[in-house]
């Protein structure tokens, strides 16, 4: 997914002279092809995230479209004030490409996990937050970043993730995609957790329960019309995200239900990371399992939801 995103930045830069790339201190050879071909719009600025965001804002003020790339947690925690004031307050079209959203960097420990990135950014006016589910969807997103008139945070996964999106579903920023039509229950997911939701839906089918999957790639602005169409039609809803249960997708769906459809008693179970720092290393998969974010737990939650109703 990261490779797709960065390759696409180069492609966009070739097509559009407003596109610039800014990295912090990325791995050797990142976007070497762009560095060689368009050196005046390729910048590797060092371990200085606060400055990088401000510099990107300055370039955007002059009509450029900067794509900033570094590790997700350093692109959010470290420079939050710059993101809030330089980008969001001034509503500038800077694109933040965040490596390792969620617990991709599980072996590196809590300093490198981005588990509250979407939550803290969701509170910022003008910010758009997108978590694609696979590399193909990333490729469909990237061309749309050119004309979107606000800052965008793009949350990348590990890479090499299975492709579950389909071209026929298309891609529009802010429009959720129904990957599987629901009958009894609906899994609502974002990012690569959509893969897990699809697996859970398949497993539920084997038990005779038809469950849908709504992939919300754009957490903000959230697709209210799709939510209001499908949520009242099902008996149970389970949200799943690779993010703390505070402030992310599940919270956004709860807020939507409370604020926009208070007459509907939609039952929602939220699956996400508990409110504590990671106490294990291992792998992304082992850490998710440790926290109970698994296909089985999704199914169990859905069964319980449907049983309640």
């Amino acid at each position: 997914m990261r490779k797709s995103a960065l390759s696409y930045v180069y492609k966009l830069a070739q097509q559009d002279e407003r596109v610039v790339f800014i990295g912090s201190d990325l791995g050797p050879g990142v976007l070497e092809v762009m560095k060689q071909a368009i050196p005046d719009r390729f910048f590797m600025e060092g371990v200085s995230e606060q400055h990088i965001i401000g510099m990107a804002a300055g370039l955007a003020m002059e009509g450029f479209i900067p794509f900033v790339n570094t590790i997700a947690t350093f692109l959010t925690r470290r420079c939050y004030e710059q993101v809030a004031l330089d980008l969001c307050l001034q509503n500038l079209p800077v694109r933040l490409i965040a490596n390792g959203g969620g617990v991709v960097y599980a072996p590196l420990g809590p300093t490198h996990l981005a588990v509250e990135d979407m939550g803290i950014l969701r509170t910022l006016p003008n910010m758009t937050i997108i978590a694609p589910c696979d590399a193909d969807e990333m490729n469909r997103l990237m061309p749309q970043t050119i004309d979107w008139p606000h800052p965008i945070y793009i949350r990348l996964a590990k890479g090499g993730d299975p492709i579950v999106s389909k071209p026929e579903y298309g891609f529009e920023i802010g429009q959720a995609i129904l990957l599987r039509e629901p009958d009894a229950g609906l899994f609502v997911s974002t990012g690569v957790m959509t893969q897990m939701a699809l697996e859970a839906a398949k497993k539920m089918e084997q038990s005779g329960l038809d469950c849908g999957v709504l992939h919300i790639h754009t957490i903000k602005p959230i697709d209210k019309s799709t939510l209001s169409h499908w949520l009242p039609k099902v008996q149970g809803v389970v949200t799943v995200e690779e993010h703390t249960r505070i402030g992310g997708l599940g919270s956004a769906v709860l807020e939507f239900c409370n604020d926009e459809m208070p007459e509907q008693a939609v039952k929602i179970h939220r699956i996400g990371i508990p409110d504590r720092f990671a106490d294990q290393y291992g792998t992304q998969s082992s850490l998710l399992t440790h926290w109970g974010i698994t296909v089985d737990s999704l199914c169990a939650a859905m069964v319980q939801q449907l049983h309640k109703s």
Partner: protein
Amino acid sequence: MDIRSKHLRTLIVNALVGGGRGHLGSSMSMVEILRALYDSFLNYRPTEPHWSDRDRLILSKGHGCLALYAVLAEKGFFPQEELTTFCHPTSRLGGHPEKGKIPGIEASTGALGHGLSMGVGIALAAKIRQQSYRVVVVTGDGEINEGSVWEAAMSAAKHQLYNLSVFVDYNKMQSYGSTREVLDLEPLTDKWRSFGFEVEEINGHDVQALEQLMHRLPLSGHKPTAIICHTIKGKGFPFAEGRAEWHHKSRLKEEEITAMYECLR
């Protein structure tokens, strides 16, 4: 202090009184810096604030905005009468300047340590597009406690941004007290020089000297410039000069207002 400097200070006091509050000390220390920049250095068109070839000034020490508002109003960016609406609920003129609201304001500032990075981006944009506009960033001294300023300084030097000049309003007082006591900046000139800047020091209240120096900018064809302006916090008001309690003033007493105008006669 000449008539013009007193006039600009009068506009600032009018705004301060209108708003009932404001960063008096921080504004008064840089009146002459801004005056010289807008009188003798910057290219701009008040009726066409987005003119593409204009020079860009970022007031990184956004809390000193009263001084910038006064200069912009005096130059015709917006009506001078508007100054007295400072901080009113629907005024354009807030306690920190916001881009998009006020003609002539290039960046929203107020949280310290942001302006130089944005200035680097704007100067870099000129370099990429081979545009000739110049970028000026005015920082405070307490402000450069922020590490982000030095991140930006390294970047400016790396990119050889000779079109970028930083004016440090070195009044040697920050909110709590003297910069020496809170977090000593010395040796300040050496610091900027070691970060790759061409540096000069100047009396930040000597208009003639400031203008002469500005005519020599850029000081280098391949380095950014830093001008350390030695100034006096609250300059022009003996009861406020160098006194931390006048850094920001609210709940102005009638006798304080009278005393301020007395100083400007």
